[in-house]
């Protein structure tokens, strides 16, 4: 067994990174407070250095995995020499220690990029933003070093081979899901830092909002993709066709997403109208705080969840301390420094301002509802009032109506203008869309399903009510230009981004409504030669066989599927596997994905008489769930590519910003 120095190098690199983060956290903030340019100038080099050394540490851990260095506890517990190289790569973040290291790496990376793309910002602003990021980074690196060191060694009794990665995690979905999710969580640290910097510097204007918007959109887009990937992974890996379980860990990712969505909209008002300033700051603080809270819930073991990491009380305490300091201090700064007098911008009921306000309030109610439902069992337990569970029935009962309400205002928002909108305009632009949404939404379920479902009709009406006014708006914009092409071309990327994001919401609503109400699931007993019909598809079991995989034994069913009277058929091959190392039985589901429906066959138990229990499912429109998520994320990114941000971001000369405009502090 090779005893390489690599883990020690990684460990030292981590220590250096933490020290650099601490310097980045202290000096620039102090410099900004006392106006010392030299101190402030530490921010950028330290951000770069922090990233470099965390990256070295991360590379070292990855190297230990690739080299099968089982003298490293973390590698011995989570890898195996037989594991394919790409799973070794992803096994690095398939455990608590490695995933916190990834968290820190991504945090350092966001900090670095914030330092790179902030040339046009005043120097004190940069110093404060990076300072706050440095403090957060220090906290997390200390967390890694003190409680979750991935470089600990198993010496001198080095195991011959590793315990292997949990088979559930040996999967493409799990390779991509955590990095995306963390990119989102961590990304919100940038807008958080912007908010704290604004509070400290007393500078909060349209320019501030314009700087903060792209960062918010990017983080939000990553989080959206992360959540969608998680749902998709659960669908085929955990869920038996379920795609959202309202598990505490899922809720933990939804919470910052909801406030992040509110933040994007509130930033729009702050930029365009100079209103809602304190509110925007508060949302920025909340969004990152909820990301941290999610981390706490997942890693402390206070809630029972299917996804929770193996826990250790000292870790819970440390994260809670981090959470307390970060959130407590920032809320204190908020309470002391939030703008005393709001900008009194006038608007009426029928204005974009008012609709965005309603959007924010709805999203915040959703957030509090989900948060309450998630921690309520814990609250009761702490008060010694017994153990209860809060699950899907509760969340669905509250979340669905709130979402529909949100959709109602999204439709109105397409037409509404800032400040005020004439009622006549609203009516003339929307009546057709309203009629169309109701008629089409009510009629469409009849076209593709045997049974009319009111829930699906309502879902479709909501989705159409989002999409039809959007089309109407595009039509209006194209009509007023010299040609359709010219009219559409003139629209900004930010506009397209917004529309795409809203379209994504509509697509997801359709997916949720249809798959929740028109799915068909049948548990059947099948022996070779038997067939069963589900939703117009005939499933025939041809034969049962067994095979030996690399590290498992499997029973395999060969099933051919025919649609209606069509002569063409396709094969589906579900397997029931037994993983030899862990003795874990796993079911390899057979999926036949499609734009309009998925077919899903899973093998259950051997019923003894040559037949097996099988679960056959027909899942209409299930892909729309995730397609909608991708569209939303794409929209968010598209808006970042808008000209007005690019102009800010591509400033070339790094020294151009050397002299800060005098009197900026005084203008606050």
């Amino acid at each position, binding site marked *: 067994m090779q005893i390489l120095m690599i883990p020690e190098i990684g460990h030292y690199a981590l220590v250096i990174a933490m020290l650099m983060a601490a310097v980045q956290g202290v000096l620039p903030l102090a410099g900004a407070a006392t106006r010392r340019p030299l101190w402030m100038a530490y921010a950028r080099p330290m951000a770069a250095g922090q990233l470099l050394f965390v990256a070295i540490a991360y590379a070292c851990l990855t190297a230990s995995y690739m080299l099968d260095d089982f003298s490293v506890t973390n590698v011995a517990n989570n890898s195996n020499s037989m594991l394919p190289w790409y799973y070794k790569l992803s096994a690095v973040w398939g455990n608590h220690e490695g995933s916190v290291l990834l968290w820190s790496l991504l945090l350092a990376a966001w900090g670095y990029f914030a330092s790179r793309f902030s040339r*046009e910002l005043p120097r004190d602003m940069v110093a404060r933003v990076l300072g706050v990021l440095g403090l957060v980074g220090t906290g997390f690196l200390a967390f890694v070093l003190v409680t979750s060191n991935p470089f600990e060694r198993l010496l001198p009794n080095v195991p011959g081979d590793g315990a292997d990665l949990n088979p559930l995690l040996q999967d493409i979905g799990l390779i991509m899901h955590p990095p995306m999710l963390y990119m989102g969580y961590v990304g919100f640290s940038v807008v958080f830092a912007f908010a704290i910097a604004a509070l400290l510097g007393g500078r909060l204007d349209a320019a501030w909002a314009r700087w903060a918007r792209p960062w918010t959109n990017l983080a939000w887009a990553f989080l959206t993709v992360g959540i969608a990937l998680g749902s998709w992974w659960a669908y*085929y*890996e955990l869920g038996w066709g379920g795609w959202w379980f309202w598990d505490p860990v899922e809720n933990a990712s939804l919470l910052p997403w909801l406030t992040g969505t509110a933040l994007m909209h509130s930033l729009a008002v702050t930029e365009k109208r100079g209103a809602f300033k304190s509110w925007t700051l508060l949302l920025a603080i909340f969004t990152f705080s909820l990301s941290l809270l999610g981390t706490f819930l997942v890693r402390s073991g206070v809630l029972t969840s299917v996804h929770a990491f193996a826990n250790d009380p000292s870790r819970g305490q440390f994260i809670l301390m981090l959470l307390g300091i970060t959130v407590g201090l920032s809320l204190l700064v908020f309470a002391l420094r939030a703008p005393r007098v709001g*900008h*009194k911008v006038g608007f009426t009921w029928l204005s974009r301002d*008012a609709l965005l306000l309603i959007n924010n309030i709805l999203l915040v109610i959703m957030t509090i509802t989900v948060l309450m439902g998630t921690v309520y069992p814990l609250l009761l337990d702490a008060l010694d009032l017994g153990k209860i569970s809060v699950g899907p029935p509760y969340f669905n009962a509250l979340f669905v109506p709130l979402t529909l309400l949100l959709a109602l205002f999204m439709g109105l928002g397409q037409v509404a203008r800032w400040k005020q909108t004439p009622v006549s305009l609203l009516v003339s632009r929307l009546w057709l869309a309203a009629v169309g949404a109701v008629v089409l939404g009510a009629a469409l379920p009849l076209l593709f399903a045997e049974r009319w479902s009111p829930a699906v009709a309502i879902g479709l009406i909501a989705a159409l009510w989002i999409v039809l006014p959007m089309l109407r708006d595009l039509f209006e914009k194209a009509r007023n230009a010299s040609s359709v092409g010219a009219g559409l071309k003139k629209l900004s990327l930010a506009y397209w981004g917004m529309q795409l994001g809203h379209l994504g919401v509509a697509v997801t609503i359709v997916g949720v409504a249809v798959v929740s109400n028109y799915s068909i699931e049948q548990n059947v007993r099948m022996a070779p030669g038997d067939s069963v019909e589900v939703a117009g598809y005939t499933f025939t079991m041809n034969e049962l066989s067994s095979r030996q995989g690399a590290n498992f034994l499997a029973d395999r069913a060969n099933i051919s599927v025919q649609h209606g009277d069509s002569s063409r058929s396709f094969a589906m091959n579900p397997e029931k596997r037994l993983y030899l190392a862990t003795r874990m039985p796993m079911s390899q589901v057979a999926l036949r994905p499609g734009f309009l429906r998925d077919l899903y066959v899973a093998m259950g138990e051997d019923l003894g008489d040559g037949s097996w229990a099988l679960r056959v499912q027909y899942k209409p429109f299930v892909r729309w769930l995730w397609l909608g998520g991708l569209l939303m994320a*794409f929209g968010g990114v598209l808006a970042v590519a808008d000209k007005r941000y690019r102009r800010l971001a591509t400033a070339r000369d790094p020294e151009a910003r050397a002299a800060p405009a005098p009197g900026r502090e005084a203008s606050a």
Partner: protein
Amino acid sequence: MALMRLSRLLTTALVLLLVAGLAQAAAIEVREFDDPVLEERYRDLTASLRCPTCQNQAINDSDAPVSGDMRDRVYRLLMDGRADIEIRNHMVERFGDYVLYNPRLEGRTYLLWGLPAVLGLLGLVLVGLLVRARRNASNRELSAEERARLDALINRERTE
């Protein structure tokens, strides 16, 4: 161009969304129902009762032995013609409130169920107050002054 790169990314992601994988072993049982309504009720009940030993799974979703026992009992009670509420209470009497995913409305859950309603009302009042206040606020183009400052900031980059 960024746009093309993005759309390529989107396509790749979509393709990746079409791959199949593994699932944890869960119980698949074949049960006979004469009445589709009963079957539907069975599905709803087993989806809203929580497995007492698992991390966080409904009994229809878990292969823990106790989940199987509970499903058997739900099935038997349904066949006996019991109402949903009776079946839920039957489980609560034996396993406690913990097994209900839909908590009952009682003293200790008033806050849980009431909070969203209270928040909704508060929100309504808040919107009402804000809009009333803002309607009377000066309607001058407030952003003009800020816009000037913003433009100055952006332009400075180019003029400098």
